[in-house]
């Protein structure tokens, strides 16, 4: 589990003069489920393609079990890929797509039959062998792609948003399915997604990327509870990120008062970003609160209410199970362990304020109004 299987050392890559990956250092341990997580265009696919051998880095080296494999062509790498858009062979049926790698190695026919059927069962596509891949649904194609890559028993499986095309239900099922397959086979999974929930629930390790750089590497709980900067805090879950000053160890000042916290090791009076998760705040009577504010919007979310609270012109998001009516003054009570302190970074001030949030919601809730107008315009 702790052996370094793949290592990227100082890898950079540019396309047409635009830097897409910037000095990536990353190692992948044997048998782990590691996820590259980040917004669209942050370089996830490019990182995967470098590992798969479809791109060569401009700088840096890639190692497999300590041996450089930067110049190894894809077919010599012990790695298989589930591509972002499946890339199934249109001239082969489902069976032959899955059997592709085995036929290449001239595996005896009975063995191929057996293994392909085993794979079809694994991805719940029993009886689909004779089908033309073009007639399959997106989810079925995706599962064929997974089976096709898995049948090779690679040391490492690279998966580029393999569940992107699936509906929520099937996606949850497939998440479990993939996780099981990974445990059963002991294959190292390098998984790409921009869905943070998927990353949190499936991974042993998460690599958060943005702008071609790695922002943080850690276990899901590390990443969630101890984000390193405002980008990570905002991208993983919801966060209120407030400007603060570290008075001394275990004491931080924001919104005009001191709070007890659990963080230490910052400079005296060092400006910091303070992260408080919406679910970690207790809503109390105004007079009992450490902070007070007016609830500006209240939205029912099923399990909880989502409240936007205006505190000194900064909008906080709070999740609570107690109903609060809009316009009501409330108090906030914050335990020391609800406070997480981060060093200032290039992302400071860019995230963590929910002022624009309610406006966005308004636009989302009635998207057809402007369209309907446009339609009637066309007809007159």
């Amino acid at each position, binding site marked *: 589990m702790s052996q370094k299987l793949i290592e990227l050392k100082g890898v950079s890559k540019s396309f047409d003069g635009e830097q897409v990956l910037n000095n990536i250092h990353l190692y992948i341990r044997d048998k782990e489920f590691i996820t590259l997580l980040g917004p669209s265009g942050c370089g996830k696919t490019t990182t995967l393609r470098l590992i*798969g*051998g*479809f791109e060569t880095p401009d700088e840096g080296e890639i190692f497999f079990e300590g041996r450089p494999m930067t110049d190894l*062509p*894809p*077919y010599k790498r012990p*790695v*298989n*890929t589930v*591509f972002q*858009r499946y*890339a*199934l*062979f*249109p*001239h*082969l*049926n489902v069976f*032959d797509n899955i059997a*592709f*790698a085995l036929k*290449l*190695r001239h595996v005896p026919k009975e063995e191929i039959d057996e293994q392909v059927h085993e794979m079809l069962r694994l991805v719940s596509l029993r009886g689909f062998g004779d089908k033309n891949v073009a007639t399959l649904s997106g989810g079925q194609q995706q599962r064929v792609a997974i089976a*096709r*890559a898995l049948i*090779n028993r690679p040391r490492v499986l690279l998966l580029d948003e393999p569940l992107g095309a699936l509906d929520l239900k099937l996606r949850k099922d497939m998440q479990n399915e993939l996780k099981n397959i990974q445990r059963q086979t002991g294959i190292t999974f390098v998984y790409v997604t921009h869905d943070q929930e998927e990353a949190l629930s499936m991974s042993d390790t998460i690599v958060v990327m943005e702008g071609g750089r790695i922002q943080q590497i850690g276990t899901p709980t590390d990443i969630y509870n101890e984000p390193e900067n405002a980008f990570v805090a905002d991208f993983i879950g919801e966060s209120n990120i407030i400007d603060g000053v570290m008075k001394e160890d275990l004491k931080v000042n924001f919104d005009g008062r001191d709070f007890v916290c659990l963080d230490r090791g910052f400079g005296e009076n060092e400006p910091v970003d303070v992260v408080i998760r919406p679910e970690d705040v207790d809503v109390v009577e105004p007079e009992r609160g450490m902070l007070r504010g007016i609830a500006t919007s209240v939205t029912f979310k099923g399990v909880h209410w989502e409240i936007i609270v205006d505190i000194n012109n900064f909008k906080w998001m709070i999740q609570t199970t107690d109903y609060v009516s809009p316009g009501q003054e409330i108090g906030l009570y914050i335990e020391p362990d609800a406070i997480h302190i981060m060093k200032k970074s290039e992302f400071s001030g860019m995230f963590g304020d929910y002022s624009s949030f309610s406006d966005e919601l308004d636009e989302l809730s009635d998207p057809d109004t402007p369209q309907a107008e446009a*339609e009637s315009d066309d*007809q007159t």
Partner: protein
Amino acid sequence: MTRPETVPAPRRKRRGVVQTIAAAPHALWCVLFILAPMAFVVYYAFTDADGAFTIYNINEVFSASYLRILERSILYALVATAICLVLAYPLAYAITKMKARHQPQIIMLLMLPMWINLLIRTYSLKILLETNGVINHALAWVHLGPVHFLNSNFAIILGMVYNYLPYMVLPIYSVLVKIDRRLIEAAQDLGCNSRQVLGRVTFPLSLSGVISGITMVFVPSISTFFISKSLSDGRVKLIGDVIETEISMHNVAAYNIGSALSFVLMVLILVSLFVTNKFGEKDGGVIV
């Protein structure tokens, strides 16, 4: 909600009328210049000088002398098609590997000779190949030759390949260039080296181009008369030459024979098209 439903209805109807009108010249063209001539060919093939029905003409086509010519024509066309395929596939493949902005230029160069009339092209080829032509002069320079290129199988096949090669390159190129790069990457990922990628993915996926290339070279090769006539000084006769002579004899009986030959050739071409297309349908099975 109700309004949009009423809008498309008249539009659809109007488009139907427009389509019919737009298609009319084409339909007329088809009837006048394709269907009618074919009907005439069939009529003359199955009638005698007095216009009475007969299968004498068809029987005549299958007599020994014509049959030999027919066989020879098929053989020449097959060889020319095979050579075109062997030359064109690597060429088309190499072009797809070039920088994207150079590709149209190369294709343009390839098509350039097609702007010159086939007769002129063939005539030029003949001049090059003549016993005191440019090539033999060049050979004399290095103390070789002279070689009698003309009046040989070589000359006729060369003429066919030279004239029809672009018809093979273009359809193959246009299919190859459209193959999704990700499929190639998927094949590499699953363990294919570049030769295996070609055999297991690229070639099977380009089969439709190969088939239309074969058709586009085989059909004109089997029916040509000018290439054989000019490169052999009329000594090698192919089915096209015979049809040409029979039809231009201004003699009704010969006209009927010419039509019967054309009819048999037409059937032959249709059958070969059918067979090639059948072969193309089960493309998955082809592995190099």
